[in-house]
């Protein structure tokens, strides 16, 4: 039973790496920090990340709703935070999206 779930997990991870969603190097680093004394490190960090991201996304949605005018500075700040934490987790694709978003902010591209 356990072996199956391990294999499933390994497969899932591999596909995330292959599709560019997850940065193998960074995620592996996080896994290496986990040990007997801290068996749930990765889980804790990822949980924190989800919680943090949910909050950030909410803030971003709110900021986007205030359309006239769009507060690009605020959006940029949120994106900076989001990008930062995505980086630490190894959420590669998300980080790239953040970078793109920030570019739009910089150029004042509301449509983007």
């Amino acid at each position, binding site marked *: 039973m356990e072996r199956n779930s391990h294999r499933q997990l390994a497969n899932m991870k591999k596909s995330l790496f292959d599709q560019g969603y997850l940065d193998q190097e*960074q995620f592996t*680093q*996080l896994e*290496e*920090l986990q*040990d007997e004394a*801290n068996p749930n*490190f990765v889980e*804790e*960090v990822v949980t*924190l*990340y989800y919680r*943090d991201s949910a909050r950030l996304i909410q803030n971003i949605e709110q900021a986007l709703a205030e359309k006239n005018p769009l507060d690009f500075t605020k959006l940029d700040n949120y994106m*900076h*935070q989001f*990008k*930062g*934490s995505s*980086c*630490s*987790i*190894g959420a590669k694709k998300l980080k790239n999206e953040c970078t793109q978003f920030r570019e739009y902010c910089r150029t004042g591209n509301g449509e983007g």
Partner: protein
Amino acid sequence: MAAEESRFHVLAVDDSLIDRKVIERLLKTSSYQVTTVDSGSKALEFLGLHENDRIAHNETSVSPKIHQEVEVNLVITDYCMPGMSGYDLLKKIKESSSLKNMPVVIMSSENVPSRISRCLEEGAEEFFLKPVRLSDVNKLRPHLMRTKCCKNIQNQENQENKESPEIQLHTAAQSNNSNKRKAIDEGISPDRTRPRYSDLTLVSN
């Protein structure tokens, strides 16, 4: 007093909870004692220095140790933080008479060369690009060793004799330099060999 601490104590400053968690784990894995705070002002508080006090403790020349409630051997801080940035924190530390010998390391997710040189010129020991890796944390050791040695010898005899072992350590550390270290560091090394607490002359800014 300092001899009791066989472990180095690092103060990590970052407004991001996730980054704090990761850096804490990285440091603990390397057997350092870690304290994390989420802002520059809290960091200064922890170091026993208040934002508006630069030369606050001249009266305490009798017992200089009470400058710091807790002994910290190195400060590692994020650059981008709301309020007081990592650069501001670095400046405050280097401007403080009691803390100017404290090694400070800056981290940033953004690779901006002008930012990096500014920090190094201000006295940062290293500049790490995020995400910080274990290999980066390993680079901290020589800086910590240097401070510790300085303090231990100082406790025994408060003289300039310690300069020779000190310089040996410093040159050893310099030979392990990463590319990010600027040559300008060599210019300010003499300051670091000066005994910490005998420098009671007012440095006005």
